[in-house]
């Protein structure tokens, strides 16, 4: 690749790391949308609080301030400097993903954490943002060469590395997020449309793949035996799993999405209860703190992945629609930055960040209203979780930094 970093040195960039005049040019609409979503998130978290001490509520507020600090740091740096660091970020991210395969603690079977003293990092979260930088860097470097097929195809090779590592964890949701990200950034970067169509067609081949995976699948018979079972029966070995086979819990999620009534007390419980929570909300909801689905423990994960169902139950269609509307406004504002940014790097960065956030908003809500199978995808600003909250705030910072640097170039 004929890409060199000859004039992308940190020394050059450092002159613009902090520039107080830029603060005056900060966008004012986006912070308004963000603060509205953040406030709704706090109010909702107070109602969805699972513990008696309101620990989650207070922590969520702290996450915001920590995230705001990260956003401020990002804003104060020129995004072009950060993009120029993308190759280094890529190496670190891939390193963490490899490390996580060896020294990770497992939560809920699929989310993997790296514990460094008091800090717990979810490398797959970080990777999402890093990959936006990497793609922005790569595509800017390529320029119009992206219209040639081999450069176009090389993009997927770069993406395949973190994707496969994340799939190995296994974290289907995050890996899936990288797909749309690649497609959108290629599209914005100006790739040939028939190249893109080819990829989408290839993606449609997933349908027969899924059919192959679920063909003859039986939730009871195919259930893998527990580790304790194999301890008790040392003569038996777990059957080998070919690499192309999905895990049982992954198959189960697709299966229960397709047959929600098959086992209402088992795997489909989440989908059914989420739909009941949303549906029973009606126009104006059951009232704040009066959501029975949450109060009586019917709705699972109501403070994390299913917080939208909780909100829709208590605040009804009006509340749900307002939240979706605010997300739309926030994301469209981000796309306006992309459209109006004079340089390719800022355009790509903004479009990529919007894609990631939009993916989370769309998939999370689609799951809660029963349009998609259950996968662990949190909702920005609303779902509880430090790692993800800070990632979201970092994304906000990146978005805000794009229009702030516009003037320099124009001048």
């Amino acid at each position, binding site marked *: 690749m004929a890409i060199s970093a000859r*004039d*992308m040195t940190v020394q*050059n960039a450092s002159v613009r790391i902090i520039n107080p005049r830029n603060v005056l040019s900060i966008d004012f609409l986006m912070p308004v949308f963000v603060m509205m979503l953040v406030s709704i998130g706090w109010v909702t978290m107070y109602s969805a609080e699972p513990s008696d001490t309101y620990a989650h509520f207070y922590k969520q507020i702290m996450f915001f301030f920590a995230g705001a600090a990260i956003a401020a740091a990002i804003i104060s740096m020129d995004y*072009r400097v950060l993009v*120029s660091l993308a190759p280094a970020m890529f190496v670190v991210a891939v390193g963490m993903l490899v490390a996580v395969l060896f020294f990770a603690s497992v939560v809920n079977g699929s989310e993997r954490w790296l514990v460094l003293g008091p800090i717990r990092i979810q490398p797959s979260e970080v990777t999402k943002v890093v990959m936006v930088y990497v793609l922005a860097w790569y595509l*800017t*470097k390529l*320029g*119009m060469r992206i219209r040639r097929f081999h450069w176009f195809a090389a993009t997927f090779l770069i993406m395949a590395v973190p994707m496969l590592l994340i799939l190995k964890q296994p974290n289907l949701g995050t890996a899936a997020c990288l797909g749309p990200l690649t497609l*959108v950034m290629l*599209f*914005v970067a*100006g790739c040939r449309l028939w190249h893109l169509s080819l990829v989408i067609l290839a993606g449609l081949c997933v349908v027969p793949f899924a059919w192959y995976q679920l063909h003859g699948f039986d939730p009871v018979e195919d259930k893998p035996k527990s580790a304790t079972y194999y301890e008790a029966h040392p003569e038996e070995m777990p059957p080998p799993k070919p690499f192309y086979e999905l895990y049982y819990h992954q198959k189960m999620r697709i299966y229960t999405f397709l047959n929600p009534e098959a086992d209402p007390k088992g795997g489909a419980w989440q989908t059914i*209860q989420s*739909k*009941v*929570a*949303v*549906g*029973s*909300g*009606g*126009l104006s909801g059951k009232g704040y703190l009066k959501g*029975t*689905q949450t109060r*009586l*423990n*019917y709705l699972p994960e109501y403070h994390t992945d299913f917080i939208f169902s909780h909100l*829709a139950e208590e605040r*009804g*269609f009006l509340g*749900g*629609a307002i939240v*979706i509307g605010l*997300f*739309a406004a926030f*994301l*469209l504002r981000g*796309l306006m930055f*992309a*459209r109006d940014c*004079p*340089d*390719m*790097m800022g*355009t790509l960065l903004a*479009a990529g960040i*919007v894609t990631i956030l*939009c993916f989370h*908003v*769309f998939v999370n*809500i*689609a799951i809660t*209203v*029963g*349009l998609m199978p259950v996968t662990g995808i949190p909702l920005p600003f609303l779902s509880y979780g430090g790692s993800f909250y800070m990632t979201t705030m970092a994304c906000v910072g990146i978005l805000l930094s794009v229009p702030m640097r516009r003037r320099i*170039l124009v001048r």
Partner: protein
Amino acid sequence: MPSSHDAERYPGVENRVQFFAVAMTVALAVLGVQLWRLQILNLNYFREKSMGQIVGEQRLKSDRGIIFARDNAVLADNRPSADIVFVPGECPKERHSEVCHSLANILGISASELYDEIESKRGAPFIQILVQQDVTKAERTRIEENAYKLPGVFTKVHPQRRYLHGKTAGQLLGYLAEIGPNQLETWREDGYRQGDLIGYAGIEQQYEQLLHGRDGFERYTRYADGSPQLLTDTGGKPYIATRDTAGNLLDSMGIRHDPSRGGDLHLTLDLDLQEHCENLLGGEAGAIVVLNADTGEVLAMASNPAYDPNVFVTQNLRTEKNVLLQGPKGATPRERLDPLKSLAFKEQTYPGSIYKMVVAAAAIEEGVITPTSTVSCGGSFQMGAVLHCWQRHGHGGTNLVNSLAYSCDVFYYTIAQKLGIDRISAWSHKFGLGERTGIDLPEEAPGLVPNPAWKAEVHKNDKDPSIGRWYPVETSIMAIGQGSTQMTPLQAAAMISTFVNGGYRVRPHLNQGMKPEREKILKDETVEIVKEGLLRCVEKDDYPRGTGQQAKVKGLRVLGKTGTAQVVRLAVRDEAARKNNGVVPWALRHHAWFVAGVIEEDLRIAVSVLILHGEKGSDVASPYAKDVMEYVYADKLKGQHVALAGGE
């Protein structure tokens, strides 16, 4: 500085970004539409689902009604039964093992098994773990005395069925058992649920709806992870516990319907007489039925072998229950009689000569003979085959009255041919034979009155058509209560009631609340002439004596008829006797029948006695009838009033 090359944008990039913006907006709009579909269009469906799953309903079970005999003697009631339960969440964890050992000491159970069960229920700390069912008073007292060192241990009291007189009337009362899956499906709407006890035989089954009462309920909000716990106070009255199995605080919705107790039932049964009849039977296999001949009220219905229904409802008698349910496994036919099947109404058998009164009445009613017509009995009757009279040297010229008094077979062989099978069959049905009497008990045997259509139906699959044909000689055989004719002792008692009460067919019943049903089926003249024969059967004590002469009670006017029902061909019986040192094996012996009625009293009763394989009715069965009559009229016979004045 980044090179200006990096910053250049290709023309059209804005369009691509805007296209993406439109696509994103459409995607988010789809979510809005789905939200609208769920929350606005399908609101009612999801509201119902949401309400349906959070409203829990705890049933408050009703007490079963009490069953009384005549004069308010209690036959079945409910006693408080105490279960010991342990709630792990009410006891500090480190004391679980200590409590297990204390309980094991007091109740004699295994401490480690209990501890394992507690461990296995960890997910539901407030579940009630059953430690011991139906503990004795002493055990319960010891638990209560040691309450300070048994935290989390509670006594749960609930009513349990009790049959106060054990075996007495046990077959009539029936018993309770858990509702079966098929029954549950049909009865669910009536409020029955899995695990409910329902009547499985006898009165308990027949009057299930009345005795069961109506269950109440209490509504409360239900958590997804727990189920409510019903506790009872020390008096056995139910109330809702405040925590469910997972330890969630329960919130009563303030909606409570108290259960309504099952209705009481008063039976026509006379407890003393019933007990007397059962004692009379002793070890004999047989049945005694005593009816009020005017109303059809059942005064006693005894049968042996019998069972004690308490074994079905008492936890500690589980082995006895299983033995009963598996059925008798004796070596001899006598031991193989099923105690669950009352011989009085669930089993039918050949009636023998007691059936003759029906043929006699039919012949008079149909005019084929007059009261004075005679038939000459030479000891046998020629009709293709030779049919014998039990009196091998014959009765000579016999009229209707004497034919009943001496039980002449040839008389009935002859008039049966004049009547024909269709008329005999029709008259039998008028008496209620060959069909259920309609007594308020389940599984009554219908008896059997054979006729050509019945025989053709039975043999319809036989290749040889001659097997299914009705031969005229069969008409003569069935007319003396042999062949295929079958009857229950209950039917026999109802049959003679018609002659005691002046020609009415009655419907036997046990519930005092039932209105007696009567239907006049015989003309008074017919009743009179048959009655004369039945009276002579008992009262004629000079030579030639009436066959029922042993049932004569001084001071009473008694109608009677003996019956000796052959169960196998005589040749088979004689052959078996020869092999058995001249003793006929029990299962081949004749059934001994006697039916009796008392007239010219305020209370007119009908009695039927069946001694299974008792040999000769006149010797074996009639003394039982005599004893019963003496018992019933004991007061009058001592010059006092009759105790059992008929109700209606």
